[in-house]
């Protein structure tokens, strides 16, 4: 599925990702945790194709070279990113936005476009999944949404787009416990053998609801530790201190490990 090898990303003089390796198999859910500023969002954006980074290394999805592709081509290849800060588009109705998005990727893939009626039932299912009120489709994209509504909208879009690889960037931040449960429920419902997910989070809290197959710790632009979900629990107790401000040995692991 997804193979990331020796990925670096810089903006101007600032080196943000410093050699990142990650392999995600079909159907797997990987959590990426790390302190603020460690490069989690930057990693998500390099997968999604945001401009402005100088990038080296390789990223392939199903053997296609993602780094060569425009963002919209990556979307058509099945990459979906749930934004940490979803963008407002005033005056553009949600329903229209979503249908245009879906039909754009379908066109690129050589598939037929969905009719308004077909779309409506797809959208209805997605709305039920994240418990969005009925009037939602007729409101403008993210404009005037609460923080929780914006995040739910990201999951709703994911449900409509049915991606091959979902990268969810801090989808849990700023949510109360009910909203968190709704979102996690939506994400879990969308798990499947053909869909991989990278769930980026700052807190282990989300991982109580979304059980990842693997957990990676990203510190200062590198993955410094990988493990199963127990790694997240360790982080909950000990914080990132074990990984920050420690010299790294030649293997890139911190001297005092978190594998206990």
């Amino acid at each position, binding site marked *: 599925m997804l193979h990331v090898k020796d990925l670096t990303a810089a903006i101007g003089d600032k080196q943000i990702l410093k050699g990142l390796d990650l392999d995600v198999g079909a159907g797997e859910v990987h959590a990426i945790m790390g302190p603020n500023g460690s490069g989690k969002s930057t990693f998500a954006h390099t997968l*999604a*194709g*945001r*401009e*402005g980074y100088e990038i080296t290394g390789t990223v392939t999805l199903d053997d296609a070279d993602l780094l060569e592709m*425009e*963002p*919209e081509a*990556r*979307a*058509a290849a099945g*990459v*979906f*990113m749930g*934004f940490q800060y*979803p*963008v*407002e*588009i*005033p*005056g*553009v109705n949600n329903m*229209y*936005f979503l249908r*245009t*998005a*879906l039909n*754009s*990727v379908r066109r*690129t893939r050589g598939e037929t476009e969905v009719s308004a009626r077909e779309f409506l039932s797809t959208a209805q299912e997605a709305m039920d999944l994240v418990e969005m009120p009925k009037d939602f489709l007729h409101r*403008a*994209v993210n404009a005037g949404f609460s923080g929780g509504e914006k995040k739910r909208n990201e999951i709703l*879009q994911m449900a409509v*787009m049915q991606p091959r690889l979902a990268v969810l960037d801090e989808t849990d931040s700023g949510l109360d416990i009910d909203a968190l449960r709704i979102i996690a429920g939506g994400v879990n419902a969308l798990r499947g053998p053909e869909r991989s997910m990278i769930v980026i989070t700052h807190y282990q809290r989300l991982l109580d609801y979304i059980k990842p197959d693997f957990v990676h710790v990203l510190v200062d632009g590198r993955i410094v530790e990988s493990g199963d979900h127990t790694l997240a629990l360790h982080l909950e107790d000990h914080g990132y201190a074990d990984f920050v401000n420690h010299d790294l040995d030649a293997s890139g692991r911190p001297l005092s490990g978190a594998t206990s």
Partner: protein
Amino acid sequence: MSESLREIEELTEATYEYGFSTDLDTDIAPPGLTEDTVRLISAKKDEPEWLLEWRLKAYEAWKTMEEPDWAKLQIQPIDYQALSYWAAPKQKPVLDSLDDVDPDIRDMFDKLGIPLHEQKMLSNVAVDAIVDSVSVTTTFKETLAEAGVIFCSFSEAVHDHPEIVREHLGSVVPVRDNFFAALNSAVFSDGSFCYIPKGVRCPMELSTYFRINSQNTGQFERTLIIAEDDSHVSYLEGCTAPQRDENQLHAAVVELVAKDRSEIKYSTVQNWYPGDENGVGGIYNFVTKRGRAHTDAKISWTQVETGSAITWKYPSVILQGDRSVGEFYSVALSSKRQQADTGTKMIHIGADTTSSIISKGISAGHGQNTYRGLVKVMRSAENARNYTQCDSLLLGSDCGAHTIPYIEVKNPGAQVEHEASTSTVGEDQLYYCRQRGMSEEDAMAMIVNGFCRDVFDELPMEFAVEAQRLLSVSLEGSVG
């Protein structure tokens, strides 16, 4: 400049799709403007004496007036003696049957998407087609006549309904109102005339399509719409011109008279040739549009201005009667080297009068967009209310947006509210849409159309679709 900024610029450098010109056999007056020119025009049109005198009075006034101070506009001086003031396709201009329309003209309108053939006509829209200075045909005349509605060229109205024309001509825009209005009054060629009798709801949309074809001619149309008590009409004008290297002058006057409890909705989709990306060519569009709203009447201006090298235009409403309502909804796009200085004037005279202004300015390339609006509340206007909202959208870093509201309130009971905002099409917004699979062009069109939503919602359905398309096309470029 970042990669996506550059792409935004490319996106906004679309080419003009109506730039073709048609080879019509045209009758053109020699360049220059003297009293004889005015007499010639009047004679060509076989006008009554009173109208010739009216024109001559306007000409005398014009000679003593000066061009307006251009404020935010940068403009080459116009040589009024180098222009020709009369151009007409050589066939007999006004025809009884659409089948008599010169096939070349019919083809030209086909290309513009305005079919004049009987079988293909837009249903429920009556069209007055004007080429250069004259009306070539008007569709659906009989249907309208059954309802008592008069919809014809201005010249026809002068001959067939002289008393109505004489009573209202210049009653809203006096001949000495401004330099261009005076010029227009002296030399106007043709235009549309609408008369909606008492209590009649006009059974279809009325529309005038203006096409400038000839070179080096000034275009001076005159439109007069009269809605009698308790009547209702929705009117639309569309405009295009061929691509030419020199600037062409267009100075129209539109007068609306909305009598008691009547409603006039006037929509414009203006797409005159804007010039190229270096600012060569394009139409100078200096237009005076004004309506007078009597008691309980409503006048609503909606405009989508995407063309012209220079747009100078302030559709206005004189809120004369008590409880009259004035509205102005505007989208103005300036890309390439276009300059738009547009807005409205709302003059509150009657009590309990209400006006609202929604202006959306879009600047791209090296375009400059200025909103200039006046809200004037006279002492007599008890309890007048105005709401103004001006939003500017910048696409790229070499363009500009300016908002200049003038507010004059002489009645302390008035409520005047003004809100303004300036935003850019964020790279973030484009990226968000592209991450969801949309091409950059589609994303841009979607975002800009969203920005204009409040105004497009005011357009009649068919034209809203056309306006959206036009905006997308104007923004389209070499990407992809």
